[in-house]
């Protein structure tokens, strides 16, 4: 091992630490901090989910159960701190939530990891629905529709973090995110992590290299519950409230979408996915009512055309970059980008206009888009939107073909080099 490669990971970690420390200074609006905090939570949650889907081949529809229960436990602990019953600094709460996630992971995992494949997926769905339904019944723990809330400015103060300002919360989340991500990465590098991959690929064979596939699945499941619990606790600290929705199917679905959009095949894929998903759902929903529509379209495009997620798309470019052939792709990409933008503009005009018209509460048919005011009911807007849509779609088809051509070219060049 050369010195460089030995210290590369360390440098990466240090770089991340510095970046994380600087971020709140670069973006210091309250809104940016809110967003960053949620990104951090999403990243831990998505990474923990990928321990199941990407690494162990377990498709779970109920991952929010561990997230949510971790969060509830953290909040109850927080209230105990407030009441003076628990002498724990608030920044350490995720340990409590993580342990709860672990415990529930152990109990439910013990039952569900005896199966894999579709049956496992269905059991996870069943547990998710069950826990969600129970949240209505065990009100003492879940607090009913109101949920449980608490005050994070209590208990012993750690490192000057009073936990009042958003920024304190940001540092806590960033630290936990870094530690959890690191730990989860290291787990992939352990014998258990490797065997989880093996179980994903071929459980039958695993039994003949000495492992009980159920045990491997079970351990991964429990550990992933632990990290989901940490994510849930961070959520609890950030919002100081948690409701039954946090154990519900929609949170489970969103973590699935995060992981899948980012790509389950690479460790950092879910990180990317969490960023994209959180940004789309928070930023977009602030600007447009149609955000779910866009999210749905985006998700479908990824599933249909990029089954390895965004990180999969990036990864196919790695060899191209290394072969210094990227410049051969860029012109075609630029073209596709331009035509794609035309298509997008057309689509946005059409979608926003029809939303505007179909929504009750719209005062007039006048609306503004990107600072331009226009009448959503006039033929001109529609002609423009549909026109751009059609032209964009047509051109995009052509440019995609040229992207294909550029790729073919790059491939033959790379093939030539590999042979040489």
């Amino acid at each position, binding site marked *: 091992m050369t010195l460089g490669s030995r210290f590369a990971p360390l440098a990466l970690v240090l770089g991340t630490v510095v970046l994380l420390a600087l971020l709140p200074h670069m973006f210091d609006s309250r809104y940016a901090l809110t967003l960053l905090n949620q990104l951090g939570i999403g990243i831990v949650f998505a990474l923990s989910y990928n321990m199941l889907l990407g690494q162990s081949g377990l498709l779970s529809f109920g991952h929010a159960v561990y997230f949510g229960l971790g969060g509830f436990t953290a909040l109850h602990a927080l209230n105990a701190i407030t009441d003076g019953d628990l002498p724990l600094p608030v920044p350490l709460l995720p340990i409590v939530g993580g342990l709860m996630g672990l415990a529930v992971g152990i109990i439910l995992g013990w039952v569900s990891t005896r199966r894999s494949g579709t049956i496992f997926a269905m059991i996870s769905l069943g547990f998710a629905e069950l826990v969600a339904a129970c949240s209505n019944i065990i009100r003492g723990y879940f607090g009913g529709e109101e949920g449980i809330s608490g005050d994070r400015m209590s208990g012993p103060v750690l490192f000057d973090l009073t936990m009042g300002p958003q920024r304190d919360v940001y540092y806590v989340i960033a630290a936990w995110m870094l530690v959890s991500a690191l730990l989860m990465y*290291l787990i992939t590098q*352990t*014998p258990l992590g490797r*065997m989880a991959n093996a179980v994903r690929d071929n459980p039958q*064979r695993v*039994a003949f290299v000495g492992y009980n596939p159920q045990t491997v699945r079970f*351990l991964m499941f429990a550990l992933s519950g632990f990290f989901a619990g940490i994510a849930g606790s961070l959520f609890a600290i950030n919002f100081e409230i948690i409701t039954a929705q946090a154990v519900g199917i929609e949170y489970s679905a969103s973590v699935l979408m995060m992981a899948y959009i980012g790509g389950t095949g690479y460790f950092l894929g879910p990180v990317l996915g969490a960023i994209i998903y959180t940004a789309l759902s928070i930023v977009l929903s602030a600007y447009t009512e149609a955000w779910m529509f866009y999210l749905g379209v985006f998700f479908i495009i990824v599933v249909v055309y990029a089954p390895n997620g965004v990180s999969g798309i990036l990864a196919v470019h790695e060899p191209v970059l290394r072969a210094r052939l990227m410049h051969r792709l860029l012109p075609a990409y630029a073209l596709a980008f331009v035509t794609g933008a035309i298509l997008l503009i057309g689509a946005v005009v059409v979608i926003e206009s029809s939303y505007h018209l179909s929504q009750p509460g719209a005062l007039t048919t006048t609306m503004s888009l990107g600072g331009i005011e226009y009448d959503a009911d006039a033929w001109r807007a529609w002609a423009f939107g549909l026109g751009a849509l059609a032209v964009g779609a047509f051109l995009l088809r052509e440019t995609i073909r040229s992207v294909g051509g550029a790729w073919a070219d790059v491939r033959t060049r790379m093939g030539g080099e590999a042979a040489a």
Partner: protein
Amino acid sequence: MSATPAISLQDVEKSFGSTRIIQGATLDVLDGERHAIIGPNGAGKSTLFHLISGHLVPTSGRIELRGRDITGMAPYRINRLGLSRSFQITTLFHRMSVVENIRCALYYPLGYRYSFWRLCPRLKDVHERADEILERLGLTGRRDVMAGMLSYAEQRALEIGLTVAGGADVILLDEPTAGMSRSETARAVDLIRALTENKTLVMVEHDMSVVFELADRVSVLLYGEVIATGTPNEIKSSRQVQEAYLGVEVA
């Protein structure tokens, strides 16, 4: 050779529903020998392997590994007692590299078990063993290729590699040369011979040249019964075997 047989089957029976596939098979595989099982298609050879390796549970009878009762034990526990098998249809970890495939077979035997606190890149012994095995398999050049991308013969070789890597001293191979060409078969025979030095080997094989080249003893399975066991030459000359299996002409 020691007195206790490596594997001993006593009156093993296996039925699927009402059909009895294995009907009272009794067989001793001696320690350190290379033992081939032949028999017509559907005689139950693969089923017998499944029974020994724990993949299936016998309906009745007793199976021993070095004198220890392993009837009905889970596959991974049997494996930990030192028995390893290959599959008639290749079963690798397709999405992992060749070397990682081999390493997977090493973690448990080298004592790392379900560890999630030790980092693989630091496990020197695993790395050395894996590289050594790749060398012997002739796959060093394909070390970092994904297993799913290997050619058929290479996959078969890796299949054998996965089977022996863990250091089990009883090896079961199910048709190791199926689908290989003559020259590949010859290479595979050499490989198997080298890899199973000082070990007990049981294999199912249709290719008689392989059987007669490799095996110390041969058993013939017919309708789920072991009808004969003997040296290759004894088997070759047995009338019963000829009729039942080899047909008129002997390969």
